[in-house]
């Protein structure tokens, strides 16, 4: 095994030199002969040496072929597209020297159509570490049969997924595949289904991250779809169920691959993907950062040493809420003023911007933040925002990540578009997610908490652990204008009536008097309150009634 690892290193560096110079020289076999000389015995020396050398030579040869993948021509083509090779990607993703490869010599078993047989069969699998955290990884090699998925290729992926579940470590899939290995027919489809089944079984057991670094089309998209997070690379990756050609023939609509399922579309319009990056290097750097934030399984707490004081006050928060209730402010700034060193890893920053979700650290502990963004759609909940936040809350609940909710929500977005597309059904997802979650739940009402949306946003009634309001909070059924119209039916002095209503409801006192909020807190101390509560709640134990599983409103 030691010999193999040395060998891999050597050939890798040779490969690097070759790709630099463009020439290909056969790699040496000397590694093995030197390691074996010590075990030689003078008796029968000749026979054994030649036998083992022959075997070693063949291992060497097959390993070299596996490392080389589809050959220099295809490697150059891959690079010319601005894409890195499967192994280069793993090298960037994992800690230096930590990768342990499995199944390097696996080949496909297809007898038909003379499919080229290259050891590894288009996917590199194994485990390694990211900042010392164990992860399992597969990286599809589009230089080998276009990275297409054969039965053997699928088996390799399944093997590391099974192992990851067994030991409770995240799986990271680097996807760059042309799709099913058509030559294998139904065996390839079966392979996909095996992967899907494992994706589903692993859901909530270990974090699954899909990184789309090339094409991913047809049935193949459903594996990333089931995983927890999808990262994409701009201009070089796309995800769609049916490609531009089919779209053209069926609907007569002309559209490019990028326009149909590129990174921009999926991170702004469809919400399929969570983050998009300029290139492979930046994408993989960010995956490293992300994985370091996440717990590896539900029993692990993601924590690191704190580098910021839990009692740091921020006076700017005292003044951040504008006097005019209709004037927006940036909720992201509020989050960044609360978290450790102002760092915030936002998820889906360009989709459903009216709600912010993402991770920050509090005293070194990873915390999920959900916050209405008054800068977009006044922070209303709509279909996309509800679904985005619901999925985030459920992920946090799966992996025991505490949830901090910052509330400034004037209600659900009105309109036929919303109603006809099922805001009732989709809004219910967020309600369901919050109500079902048993992780520590802390909420802070910064301004508006109106109507049903108040209930939804981690309210006391949905088993919120600590619920606070800033002095600027307004917990009410609705804003004064609408309320006055209903209460007074347009009779009398509207200005005066609004004043009466505001004095009564447009403040946090009615909620505080009923205990729906635990306290009205000074904004500048928000960080301190959250840190203390997280410490208080760290051993929280709450479980839902025993059941097979709930029936979330899909």
């Amino acid at each position, binding site marked *: 095994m030691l010999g193999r690892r040395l060998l891999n290193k050597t050939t890798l560096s040779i490969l690097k030199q070759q790709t630099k110079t463009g020439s290909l020289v056969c790699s040496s076999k000397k590694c093995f002969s030197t390691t074996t000389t010590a075990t030689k015995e003078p008796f029968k020396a000749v026979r054994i040496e030649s036998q083992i050398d022959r075997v070693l030579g063949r291992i060497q040869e097959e390993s070299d072929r596996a490392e080389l993948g589809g050959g220099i021509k295809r490697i150059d083509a891959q*690079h010319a597209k601005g894409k890195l090779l499967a192994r280069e990607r793993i090298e960037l993703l994992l800690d230096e020297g930590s990768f342990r490869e499995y199944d390097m010599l696996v080949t496909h078993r297809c007898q038909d159509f003379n499919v080229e047989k290259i050891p590894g069969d288009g996917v590199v699998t194994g485990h390694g570490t990211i*900042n*010392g*955290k164990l992860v399992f990884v597969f990286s599809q090699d589009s230089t080998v049969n276009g990275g297409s998925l054969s039965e053997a290729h699928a088996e390799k992926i399944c093997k590391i997924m099974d192992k990851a579940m067994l030991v409770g470590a995240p799986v990271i899939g680097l996807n760059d595949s042309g799709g099913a290995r058509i030559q294998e027919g139904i065996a390839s489809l079966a392979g996909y289904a095996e992967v899907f089944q494992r994706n589903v079984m692993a859901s909530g057991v270990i974090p699954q991250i899909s990184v789309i670094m090339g094409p991913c089309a047809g049935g193949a998209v459903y594996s990333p779809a089931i995983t927890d997070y999808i990262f994409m690379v701009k201009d070089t990756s796309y995800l769609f169920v049916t490609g531009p050609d089919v779209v053209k023939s069926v609907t007569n609509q002309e559209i490019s691959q990028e326009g149909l399922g590129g990174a921009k579309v999926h991170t702004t319009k469809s919400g399929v993907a969570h983050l998009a990056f*300029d290139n*492979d290097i930046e994408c993989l750097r960010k995956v490293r950062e992300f994985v370091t934030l996440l717990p590896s399984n539900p029993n692990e707490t993601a924590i690191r040493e704190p580098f910021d004081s839990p009692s740091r006050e921020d*006076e700017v928060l005292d*003044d951040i809420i504008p006097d005019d209730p209709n004037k927006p402010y940036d909720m992201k700034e509020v989050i960044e003023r609360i978290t450790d060193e102002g760092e915030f890893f936002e998820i889906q920053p360009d989709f459903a911007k009216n709600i912010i979700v993402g991770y920050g650290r509090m005293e070194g502990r990873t915390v999920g933040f959900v916050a209405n963004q008054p800068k977009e759609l006044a922070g209303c909940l709509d279909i996309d925002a509800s679904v985005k936040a619901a999925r985030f809350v459920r992920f946090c609940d799966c992996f025991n990540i505490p949830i901090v909710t910052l509330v400034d929500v004037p209600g659900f977005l009105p309109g036929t578009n919303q109603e006809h597309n099922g805001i009732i059904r989709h809004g219910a997802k967020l309600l369901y997610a919050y109500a079902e979650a048993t992780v520590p739940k802390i909420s802070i009402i910064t301004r508006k908490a109106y109507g049903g949306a108040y209930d939804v946003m981690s309210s006391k009634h949905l088993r919120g652990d600590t619920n606070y309001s800033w*002095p600027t909070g307004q917990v009410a059924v609705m804003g004064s204008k609408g309320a006055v119209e209903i209460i007074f039916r347009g009779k009398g002095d509207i200005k005066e009536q609004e004043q009466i209503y505001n004095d009564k409801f447009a403040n946090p006192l009615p909620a505080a008097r009923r205990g729906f909020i635990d306290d009205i807190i*000074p904004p500048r101390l928000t960080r301190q309150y959250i840190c203390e509560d997280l410490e208080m709640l760290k051993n929280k134990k709450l479980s839902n009634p025993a059941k097979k599983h709930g029936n979330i409103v899909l």
Partner: protein
Amino acid sequence: MNRLFNIQSVIKKQVGWSNSRSFHSTSPNFMFEKILIANRGEIACRVMETCQKMGIKTVAIHSDVDKNAKHVQLADEAICVGPAPTSESYLNIEAIIEAIKMTGAQAVHPGYGFLSENAKFVKELEKIGVTFIGPGSYAMHALGDKIESKRIAKEAGVSVVPGFIGEVDGIDHVIKIANDIGYPVMVKASAGGGGKGMRICRNDEDVKIGFRLSKQEAKSSFGDDRMLIEKYIEHGRHIEIQILSDGDNALYFPERECSIQRRNQKVIEEAPSSFITPEVRERMGKEAAALANKVGYKSAGTVEFLVDSERNHYFLEMNTRLQVEHPITEEITKQDLVEHMIRVAYGEKLKIKQEDLKIHGWAMESRVYAEDPYRNFLPSIGRIKKYIRPSGTGVRIDGGIFEGAEISTYYDPLISKLITYGEDRKTAITRMKRALDEYFIEGVNHNVPFLRDVMENKDFMEGDINTSFIPQEYPEGFKGYNFTPKQIQSLSIAGVLLRFIEQHKSLTNSSNSNRTSSVSPDIVYIAKVGNVSSPLQFVPSEDGSNNKFFAQFLNEEGDAIKDSDVTVELVDSTPQFMKLKIGSSIHRFQIHKKGITSFTIQYHGTKIPVTVLSPEEDSLSKYMPVKKSVDNSNSLLSPMPGTVLSFAVKPGDKVVVGQELCIVEAMKMQNVLRAPRDCEIKSITVKPGQVVAVDEVLVEFK
């Protein structure tokens, strides 16, 4: 509420303050009890500080958008005098008089700008028996008017700039006089100040445009569009004399030099001037005092001169108020000018004598503005997201904002005045450099990069400056600091250390610390600054200290370059700052943006991205596609947020490069936007009067 907010203003500015004590009553005290400060921003805060020192209660006035401003929080009471536009609030005499009555203030300090030189306001105050802390309305009227003051100055024996003494009107008249005096000439508003309403004209065409724009500006800024014209003395030095008089005898202070100007607005001032000899100083001082005595001046004031290369001085104008740059005079004379103003206004006689006003050391002031030095100093607006002020020996900041404040188009974009003091000019400059390096401002563009660059300018350091310094030294505009190879090495070290620290933090995660053999940070990185790529190896020091390293630059083969190793000590590190001792010298870095693979570092005032890659990332980065930036050359973008005043062209017009296209007004300055190339106008996308954002498309070209 106080439990929850650290603000007193919420309570104290409630209307209906029931203090019915008459402001006419004679107080048994020997000083005013309460002063209203009819201003905002840093100067209001500055005046309040002295009031507090003297035990005088203060009243702030504010517009509704300023209700949480620093000057409001500093004051004992605050009254809202109107909405955001200055004409309806800070210039709203009626509301201010009402505020005085409501609060019972006995005197008003006007600061600078706004009503500080408004004789009508002074008369209104006289009517209700409230003291104006400034000269009487006669002196103000006589000297505040540039035409009138020139006449008086001449009579008082002060040497004046050649020009036409009188008001000019009608474009033909102006052109005629301009030709009589000889180009270049300066047209300026009689009531002007602060660079507003004045333009240098070098030919008839300039006069035509400059006269019109200055007149419009004067009208909107001062409500007075009378204009005058005089000879423009090129390469002159702007040197001014602070005077102080109790009405009987005027004292003169050592001079201030304010030659570093852009668009006739002072940027860097110093006291004393490196150019002035004791003889000239005395001559200028005596003339200035004579002028003050001539009009029976009673307060602090400033006589501005232009000094040519032969050290001849010419009277420009007299400002009958406290000047923006007064702190440098205070620093070198150890006097509190605001206190003197208040005492004189109360009727006290000056206790200091001319011989008390000696020069002690050297002071320098940088005006820190919210503006973009890379885009011709155009104003920048926005929210100050992060604001960390420098401090330490010899550093004074007169500021009026704090973190979270909004810089709006309504008011002057001055963030603060940064003043440094030392025993000599060199020390003042050294301290200014350090202070600028420790000044962290995020959220708006600001001129710190420019100020910092000037501090290292050779001519500036030698004191060889004049009013054309900026156009001469930056003919193409300011492009940022030019880093030397040595400084790029320091930047590389800083960048690598930042990534090293970041990785060190990441590696403290519980999974890694629970490993039997935990992963340790990488030590070889490649730093890229501009097109310079430096492989760098970081070795923790042998003595086991956590903040000491050994940095070695490597060659392409990965071997250490001989004699390239240097010791690096992490002296201080916060999310915003990193202070390193590299070799034996201290370097200060500001960290402004963490990108995925880069850090934007501010060093020597200029921000520059430093990309830090691992050797693997570096060797593979050659395959990464280069993303193209969007080409906008087919349109004219608004370079700043503001209001479009007018268009000089219409769709279909063919224009040549440099031709006026439209005027955008921002911060009361009218900015002419010109054609970037010869082209045909395709369409005009906004209407006059429309408020536009920065980079909004104004005109499209074919």
